């Protein structure tokens, strides 16, 4: 699978703050790739570097085979990018901004924009300033999708929008993915990501702590609860502990890649009274990874291994 975006040891510093600490990542084509992370984790910086809107301090970035540092404009023409707070000309009407933007793209732009705007129920002759936040977001999305780009990059597209509008945005993303095009999505809305993502990458304090297929991540990350016998300690088992906590005789942990048969073995262990394994929602997995990464002795896992 060829990659649509490739980061190679990319680092960026803002003043004294390391926004990105040497991340390496390859995003394959034709998938929905979600970038998760807290505010300030470096998601927007990474995307802007890819688009040539910021320059990296070191490393190489390429999009669709083009070098981000030198061919940023060419990249931006082929890629649809919806920034977190899209700026529009408020004094233009919905139709006018479509006509205006069509001047910089091919002949199919305007009709396609018209279709999308109509699909979203946007009134053509209303000034953008007079639209609600949700409708303005839909205008911005229509402008970005009208070009039918092979790669769509959305930075927090649904933040601050109501549920119905968010659902419409998700459906648009699904439509783009269904045609085989790539969608890269940076988001806080973990429940939305859980529905539509093929791959998930977690960024924390400028470092990539996990990159994996969503299905695999959910299969391999589980919650293990052991109820121990009086005075017993947690026995060894095959699997990595991400986070753990105790309460009385109960010990609970988020474990990675628990080996086959380990659960039964634990149940038969004399120091264990009861053992329970539970799957986790993406949000809980996210929290566990972040907590693990935040611990002082933490060693980052699967740091930016190329996705294949």
């Amino acid at each position, binding site marked *: 699978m060829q990659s649509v975006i490739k980061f190679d040891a990319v680092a960026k510093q803002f003043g004294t703050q390391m926004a990105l600490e040497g991340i390496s990542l390859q995003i394959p084509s034709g998938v929905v790739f979600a970038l998760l992370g807290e505010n300030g984790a470096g998601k927007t910086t990474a995307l802007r570097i890819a688009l040539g809107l910021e320059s990296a301090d070191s490393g190489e970035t390429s999009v669709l085979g083009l070098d981000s540092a030198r061919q940023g404009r060419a990249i931006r023409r082929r890629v649809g990018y919806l920034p977190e707070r899209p700026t529009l000309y408020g004094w233009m009407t919905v139709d006018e901004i479509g006509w205006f933007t069509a001047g910089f793209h091919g002949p199919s732009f305007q009709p396609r924009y018209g279709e999308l705007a109509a699909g979203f129920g946007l009134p053509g002759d209303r000034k953008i300033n007079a639209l609600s936040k949700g409708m303005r977001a839909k205008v911005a999305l229509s402008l970005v999708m009208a070009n039918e780009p092979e790669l769509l990059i959305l930075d927090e597209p649904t933040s601050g929008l109501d549920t119905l509008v968010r659902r419409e945005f998700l*459906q648009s993303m*699904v439509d783009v993915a*269904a045609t085989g095009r790539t969608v890269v999505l940076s988001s806080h809305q973990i429940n939305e990501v*859980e*529905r539509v993502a093929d791959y998930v990458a977690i960024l924390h304090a400028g470092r990539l702590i996990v990159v994996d297929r969503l299905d695999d991540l959910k*299969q391999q990350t589980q919650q293990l609860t052991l109820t121990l016998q009086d005075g017993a300690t947690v026995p060894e088992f095959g699997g990595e502990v991400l986070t753990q906590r105790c309460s009385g005789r109960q010990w609970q942990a988020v474990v990675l890649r628990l080996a086959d048969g380990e659960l039964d073995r634990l*149940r038969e262990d004399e120091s264990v009274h*009861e053992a329970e394994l539970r799957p*986790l929602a993406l949000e809980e997995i996210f929290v566990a990874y972040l907590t693990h990464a935040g611990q002082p002795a933490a060693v980052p896992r699967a740091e930016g291994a190329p996705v294949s």
Partner: protein
Amino acid sequence: MFFPIDPTSGVAIYEQVVRQIKFAVAGGVLRTGELVPSVRELARELAINPNTVARAYRQLQDEAVLRTIRGTGLAIAAGAVERCRRERVRLIRDRLRQVLDEARNSRIDFDDLRTLIERELKAVEQKEP
């Protein structure tokens, strides 16, 4: 087709789609020969990844619940209803096994368990389906 998808439930989304379609077939909501929505339509309606729908459809085809109608799409295969009903029984059996395993792990006395099961069974028999 209306059914809820819970991405946080611990059952993979594609598996939820597979089950829901099988339930619909077993319950007569989807009949033999009836077309299912295209991958794109269903993905859009449920707001889930189209690859997930594709995967579910592939599994349903492998299990002979769906079959291709060239040029049109996927439809419920002949004999699917029977298969899905049997599957539903199998699912109930698996869930019963889970409950019984849990009972065993909680070290409930087996005689107490048997009495409990018989009582519940009786109560359910008397209820309307």
